[in-house]
């Protein structure tokens, strides 16, 4: 039995060969990981990119989107000239962005600063939007903010104005069932025509003013109300806001939930930045 096969005895050549084989496999795995990892400086362009500029990748997805935006073509249908032009423009942009970073353009250009602030805020919002809340979380939000989930009320009302001393008489006559036009003629009033037909509450509030609007919306369909300034309100129709069911409101609930989550993330982000920063304020502004 040869020494290679006799595992009862130490055989240095066999041990070295096995160690070398292990080392080679290890090197292979490490090399594979090293040269295929994202962001590693290599001489090859990663498959997901169309170019790298000082190791900064230009992604295929952005390239395709740019081709679509500029020439309205997919990469497969684009001509070589179109492809070259778009790629050249993207490389140019990347070079200029890198130069702008070198020159610290953000410190002096208000537009760049505003864009960077917006980008960081958007990033926080995108994190919130990507997270999918559970139905339990959405229902809890709905239950906590039920007042926000209702239809807009609508109202149709005639706003009649009388001399203030005659308004009570007009109110009595209208409540007794007399015709509005006859009462107007007899008591010297006029129809403001402030509300034209059925209007949503928000429009009626603008057209009637806050006091008359409050009086009108507190009156049921067919009722009559008064408001300061000799206003007599004939409420022809009043549909107060109707609460939505969770199912009907879910779309809005999800949107509001995400907006609130995004706002919280933005606040948290800002708090974190303030906490880790070394901020010194001039004594006269403290």
């Amino acid at each position, binding site marked *: *039995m040869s020494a290679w*096969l*006799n*595992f*009862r005895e130490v055989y240095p050549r066999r041990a070295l060969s*096995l160690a070398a*084989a292990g080392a080679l*496999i290890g090197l*292979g*795995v490490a090399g*594979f990981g090293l040269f*295929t990892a*994202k962001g590693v400086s290599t001489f090859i362009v990663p*498959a*997901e990119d169309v170019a790298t500029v000082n190791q900064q990748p230009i*992604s*295929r*997805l*952005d390239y*395709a*989107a740019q081709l*679509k935006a500029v020439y309205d073509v*997919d*990469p*497969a*249908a684009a001509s070589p000239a179109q492809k070259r032009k778009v790629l050249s423009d993207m490389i140019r942009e990347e070079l200029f962005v890198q130069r702008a970073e070198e020159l610290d353009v953000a410190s002096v250009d208000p537009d760049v600063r505003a864009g960077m602030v917006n*980008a960081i805020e*958007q990033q926080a*919002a*995108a994190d*919130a*939007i*990507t997270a*999918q809340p559970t139905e339990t979380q959405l229902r809890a939000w709905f239950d906590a903010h039920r007042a926000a989930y209702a*239809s*807009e009320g*609508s109202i149709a009302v005639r706003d009649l104005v009388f001399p203030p001393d005659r308004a009570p008489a007009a109110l009595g006559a209208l409540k007794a069932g007399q015709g509005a036009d006859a009462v107007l003629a007899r008591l010297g009033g006029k129809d403001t025509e402030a509300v034209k*037909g*059925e*209007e*949503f509450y*928000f*429009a009626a509030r603008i057209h009637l003013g806050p006091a008359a609007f409050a009086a009108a919306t507190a009156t049921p369909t067919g009722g009559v109300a008064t408001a300061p300034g000799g206003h007599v309100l004939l409420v022809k129709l009043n*549909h107060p806001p109707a609460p939505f069911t969770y*199912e*009907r409101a*879910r*779309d*809005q609930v*999800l*949107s509001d939930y*995400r907006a609130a989550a*995004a706002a919280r993330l933005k606040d948290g982000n800002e708090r974190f930045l303030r906490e880790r920063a070394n901020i010194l304020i001039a004594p006269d502004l403290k």
Partner: protein
Amino acid sequence: MDRLHDVTLARRTWAAIGGAGLVVLGALTWLIWSAAMDGRLLRTDPGALPQHPTLMSYAHERGAPVFQARCAACHGRDGRGDPARGAPNLTDADWLYGAGEIADLETIIAHGIRAGAPRTLAFAEMPAYAHPKPSRTEPIPPLSPADIRDMTEYVVWMSGRPADPAAVARAAPVFQTRGGCYDCHGRDGGGDSAIGAPRLTDAVWLYGGGRADIAHSLAEGRHGVSPAFAGRLTPVQIRETAVYVYGLSHPGRSASPR
């Protein structure tokens, strides 16, 4: 006796070393093959991918678990969507954005719709006409309750169903003028997939096509969101998911026969 024992031990040890070597070799081969396939998948133009059954099959298999983990919560495990959530059916031929090609899907998966991401698709948003400022971006005036009732009938009529003719006649000029509906949905209600404006002349409804659903959409607006996964999924995962979603509406074109 001792010699026989030594031979058996040697055979077992070499078999173990050989087995381990084979496993390592297999793993390495798989890694290299999978990296090569990922590279081919990414370097192939998305529009040309359906002509490569092997790549489509590879991407479809790997896209399925990503879809189930990231997309199924809204679109459903089978991709048929949910009108209660405004999640579109991905198995039909009706596409709100683009034409349902792999490139279109890849863009949506990467950048999302109204996702707050820098390149997200947010060209249009259904105004909430029962509110003082119906649109956050466009100077569109609100409509009256009567306008919304009429417009509901008009939209029902556009989709080829019976509707109140007087209401339809009243709503038509509103649709074409102050309502601003024509601007996104088109004069003929044909929609515009470049901005995600749905066609109103077919039987496909993102949020339900009943009168109450339509009236609610008109009154309260719609602002559906699809998250952006660029930076959360790798480029190859995004393409694989796009291929999987493409396969949902193109059965037989995403998986090669085995």
